[in-house]
Structure formats: C-alpha cells, structure tokens
C-alpha cells in the first residue's frame, strides 16, 4: 500500500514527529521515500534571489546552494535514513504547497507525509501565510492520501494497529472508509469506526432532548451498519461507536482513549479553506491540529 512515500519537510524540528513516522513507514513497508524540501519563495521578480523559508535570509540561489541544502537535510535525518533505505532528497524553489503538489503530480506517491507547521520563522513567512496553511492547501488538492503529524505522535510506536475512522456520512467520508478498511485489512489492524454526532446547536438555541439525541445515535448506528459494516464481509476486527458532542473534540478524545495510532478522515474539497489568515475550517483540519497521532485526510477516491 505504501510503496512510494513523499515526505514534505521543512527540515526543522517542526517536522521531527512527521519524520519519525515517515522514515518508520519507509523502513517497515520497504518503500521508496522522497524527502522533499522547498527552499523558499523566489523574490525580486525574475532574479535569482530567494528568501530561505527556514532562515528567513535572502540567498543567491545556485547549484551549490541547492547541494548544500540537500547535504544539510541528509545530515539532519542521518540517524533515520538507514543504509538500505531507498531514499532520495529533493529540493525546489517556489510556494511550498504548490511545489509539493507539483512533485506529487509527477511522481504519483501512495501517500504524502507532512508536519502540521513548516516552522517558518520571521515576519516574512508569517505575512505570506506559509505557516500551517501549506498542509491545508495540499490536503485540499492532492490526489493521494495526505498524512499530517502536527503534534508528538504520543501513541505511535511504529506501524499501525488501531485505526480510527471518523465519518460524517459524506461522500468523501465513504472514500476515506474505503482507504481505512483497505489499510486495516492489509496491516491487520483494528478498525474503530466513529461518528461524532454534532450537538453544538444546543448552545445557540434549542436544547436537544435526550430522547432526541438517543434517537439520532440509533439512526447513526444504522447508517454505520448500512454504509460500512455491510461492506466489510468477514472482517471482524472492528468496533462501532457514536459519540455526541463537538465533532472534532469527540474524535480526538476517542482516538486518545482507544490508543489509536492513526486517524483517517475525509476532507471536503469544495469547502473553502480559511481566508488565508490561518483559520482552519473543517473538522478534519481541527483534528489534524489536535490529535496526538498521525491523521490521514483523503479528498477523493484512491485509484487502485
């Protein structure tokens, strides 16, 4: 399932947790891994000057500088890149999300792994809304699953054994289910299916009666059986739950309680992501920010 991994990294400690997972996956699944770094944004029109996103400094870009950056990345991940590992280090210049998508389109990886924040520093990076928005834009447009590790992957010990699949019964959730189920079968994991019933409406006006909530939970369980369980045939290693509350909070809590080492969710491509000010809209994005395990977001069916 993971034969080709695109690990997009700032090569700073902001991506250390992501690196641990990405290189672990490469070793475990014998995959090719491209460690990809976007050096910075070209400035001065057509000149060769680039603002390095990591240092915030202006650099004259040439082959030497590229090689230097590649060397630094290799050194930074030296303890993780095993001699037997099929690993390539790639660098590019441009807007981070655009270059990640460009490379992904060319190399067609099975998964993109990235940190939640590039760790870009300085007013320049902040103004250009680089921090944190890269993964939003990649998750929105990528044609493969995108795994984000934003916080220390507390319950990730290597490999996957407990996968939480969070659903809102949308089309993209169905797509995410197909992937999560595949993953669970392939790697012999427990699949934990959760629907978080959104009762946030009660804060605004109407308080749901408990009967009403129970009724909705019953309906959600039926949906789960109809949409997912019926498709799992003889796969028995699963659990189904419906929790009520604020959806992203419930998903994060559920994953913590179940010691999940992975959350899989759909990502609504049509939903506009923020307004460029770093505001995160969808439930998936909130989960990415808060979960302490890797989160895979999927926005379209994965071709097999």
């Amino acid at each position, binding site marked *: 399932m993971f034969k080709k991994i695109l690990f997009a990294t700032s090569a700073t400690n902001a991506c250390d947790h992501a690196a641990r997972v990405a290189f672990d996956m490469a070793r475990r699944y014998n995959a090719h891994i491209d460690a990809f770094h976007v050096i910075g944004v070209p400035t*001065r*029109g*057509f000149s060769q*000057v680039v603002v390095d996103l990591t240092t915030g400094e202006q650099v004259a870009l*040439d082959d030497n*500088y590229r090689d230097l950056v590649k060397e630094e990345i290799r050194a930074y991940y030296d303890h993780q890149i095993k001699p037997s590992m099929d690993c390539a280090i790639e660098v590019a210049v*441009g807007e981070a999300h655009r270059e990640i998508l460009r490379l992904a389109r060319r190399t067609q990886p099975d998964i993109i792994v990235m940190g939640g924040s590039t760790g870009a520093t300085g007013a320049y990076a902040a*103004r250009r809304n680089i921090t944190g928005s890269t993964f939003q834009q990649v998750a929105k447009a990528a044609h493969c699953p995108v795994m984000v590790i934003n916080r220390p992957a507390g319950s990730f010990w290597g490999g996957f054994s407990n996968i939480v699949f969070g659903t809102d019964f949308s089309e993209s959730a169905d797509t995410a289910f197909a992937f999560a189920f595949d993953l669970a079968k392939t790697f012999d994991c427990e699949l934990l299916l959760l629907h978080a019933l959104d009762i946030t409406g009660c804060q605004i006006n109407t308080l749901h009666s408990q009967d009403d909530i129970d009724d909705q939970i019953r309906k959600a369980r039926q949906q789960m059986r109809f949409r997912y369980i019926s498709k799992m045939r003889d796969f028995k290693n699963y659990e189904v739950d419906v929790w009520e509350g604020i959806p992203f909070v419930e998903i994060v809590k559920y994953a913590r309680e179940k010691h999940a080492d992975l959350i899989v969710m759909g990502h609504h491509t049509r939903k506009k992501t923020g307004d460029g000010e770093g505001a995160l809209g969808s439930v998936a994005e909130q989960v990415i920010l808060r979960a302490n395990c890797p989160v895979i977001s999927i926005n*379209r069916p994965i071709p097999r």
Partner: protein
Amino acid sequence: MPEGSLCNKQPIQTDAALKTLLSDTGGRQYYQEMKSLDVDRGLLRDTIEKTCKSRIRTWLSICAHCGMCADSCFFYRINDRDPKQVPAYKIQSTLGEIIRRKGNVDNAFMHMAMETAWAKCTCCNRCGLYCPHGIDMGVMFSYLRGLLYQQGFVPWEMKIGAGMHRVYNAQMDVTDEEFIDTFLWMAEENEEEYPGLTIPIDKVGADILYTVNAREVKHYPEDLAQAAILFHLAGENWTVTSKGWEQTSLAMFAGDWAACKMQVESVYDAMERLKPKRMVGTECGHAHRATVVEGPYWAGRKDGLPPVESIHYVEWLAEALRTGKLKIDPARRIKEPVTLQDSCNYVRNHGLKEITREIIRYIVEPGYFIDMSPNREHNYCCGGGGGFNGIGLYREQRNKALITKRDQIIKTGAKLVLAPCHNCWDAIRDLEETYQIGIRWSFLKPLVLGMVEIPEHLKPKE
C-alpha cells in the same frame, strides 16, 4: 581582455550557455570580466548612424536644459535632489555624449552609462509628460539600453532574461510542453469545484486568445487557474496557444532588440495561426507594452497594431463586469481601505487610467477606495520597473527607489494595494519586505474570484 567567456557581446543562444551564465552566482565573474571588456567603437558608431533617427537627435538637440523634468523623476526626489539625477542630465551625459563623440567612449564610460540606464531610470516615461518640448527620456533610455546591450554592458540578470527569450521564447525556462501541462493541471485541480472547466488549447477562431507571463507558469499557476475560471464563469469562448503564449519581454528591458522582435513575433504567429477575435493579456504592464504597444513596430507592422485587437486584462475584466458576464455579489465587495497602483506601462503609456477605476466601482464598497496622490498618468513608478526589480547589482538603489511608492501608500492609509501588474506587484511586495508598513497586495483575479456570483448551471452538483 577584449571579450570575457561570460561577459561579451554575444547574445545567449543555447540552453548550455544560459546554464553556464546562471551558474555564475550573482554574476561575480561576469562583472569582473566586464571591467576589461573592450568597447567596439566602430560598431557603436555604425549602429548610431543606422538606428539613431531624427526623433532622438532632435530631442537631444532641442533640450533647453530648463530642468522641468527634474521634479517629475522620483529618483531625483528621493536622492536629495541630486543634479545628477535630473532626467535631462542623465540622458545627455550618456546617450547624448555617445552621439556627440560618435561612439568614441571607453570602458569606464560604458560602466557609468550602464548604471545610469538601469539604476537611474525605470523607463516609466513620467518625465516626458512634464517636458515642455515633450522630450521622452524613457524612450531614449530604452534606446541607450540597446546600444549598451550590443556592446555587452548589460546587468547579469538582464542578459539571462534576454537569453531565456532566445532559448525558450519565454522569460523563464518554461517549455511549451510545461506551459500546457501546467494549465491542464490547474483545470484538473479545479474541475470539481467548477464542473465543465476546461482549457481550450489551440482552438481556431475563438473570441479570446489568452497570453500570460511565464512566472505564472513557473511559480504561481493559481493565476492561470483563476484566469481560466473567470473566463469559464463569464461564458467566454477562449483559448490558449501551445506556442507563442508568453506575452512579456525581458528582452525589452535588456535592450536586446533582435530578441524583442523574435519574442513578439512568436505571439503574433499564434494570432495569425489561431485567428482569434481578440487577444487578452494577463495582469502585466510591460507585457502589454511589449506585445501591444511597441511590439508592432519591432515586428515591422506598418499599421502599428498587433495582428488582432489586443487588450489588457483590466479591459476585459471591466467589460465582463459592465456587461454582466461576471456578476459581483455586493455582500462580498472589498470593505476595507484599499488603494490602486497605476502601472506606468498601460496607464501613463497606454491611456487605461479610467478602466481600472471602473473595476473598482464594481468590486469595492463605496467609500473604501482611496486614490494615491498623484495618480493616473501622473502616478509614480512602483520603484522597480524596467527590469530594476531583478538586478542584484543595483539592489540598494532599487530599495531606495521604493520609498516614493511606500510613502504614497502610507498616505492613503490603505492596508490593501491592488496591483494589476506583475512588476508593480513584485515591487510592492519587496517594499513591504524591506520597510514593513503592514500592507497586503493583490492582483485583481483572486479578489474578483472571491466575490463573483457563480451562475446556477455552473455550480457543482451536490
């Protein structure tokens, strides 16, 4: 040393030569070699005789040295009114001197002329507006650049830029295949949100042929996507060409006359081949100047016009909004103090001053637009025009040149600057980076896309 291996009189003709020059970081060796580059005086004299016609000769001789141009030049104003920054002085002491001496000038003179031509003039042509005789120093500086280029005295980035046009027919190393592939990629990325979005390639007889700036392909393909989406939403019958898609001309900034001709002819060939009703160019000022205003003369077109009617993006956008092809949701109009950068190349030099303001009436809530002062044809250059933005050697002078625009913007109190020109957009970004005055800047496309109403039949089906 007559000719260096990197700095010489030969234009860049091959990809290998381009890469070699590019690998000379910052042009270190290039500028070193320039110090001992010989001036081919015979060639200079012959070129002047052949190409310096009565207009320039008359201008140079009728200049009354009245100094009316001095205050019109932003370089003069920000450099403590240094007399050496008076436009008339700048051109008389360089081009005027070369002609008076019949080309008998030396290396040190050419270095001085190069710095004057690229670091003391952005060819914004503002001085021409204020000269009682109508003498246009900007036009003469463009001519001087041509003489300097021919002799090899041209900033490193300019030589590269002109070389890009010669090798790639584009200002950056973007091939025709990459151009098409990138445009298709953008359609792929947006087709779910905008069902039916396609990129019509090489369609003969379309209403619109759309031409771009290679930087959009290289670094900001979102711009291509936005253009395609807006044409799609407006229901336009449009196309792009697989050859001759680059509207810009760094060759013009560099003074590489042959490359200017070659570049613009590639666009005109596409027009002849695809026979569109009109050409619409992207939000770029110098691209418009190169392809629509000056290009016809480079290509030797007798009527002084491109093969088909060619308009700037702002003209198309204003028309689409005026005729209702694009409808703005009033609730989503800009509701914050906003100002507009008038691009010299299509406002002062091509009269499009009211078109952009018409667009503003559609997209900005009344009361929020604040004009800079001065504005329209009297507006100042962004500070990075004419290639200035890209030249590392003159970075310090360029950053100083941004002060005029910085202060103009600060006075408006606006936090958002509309910059429908690539060069202005860059300069304003750089001035924010350098001086940090807390502004944002934008092309028109992304803003309009955020507020346009999507016709019912073009909405995605749930």
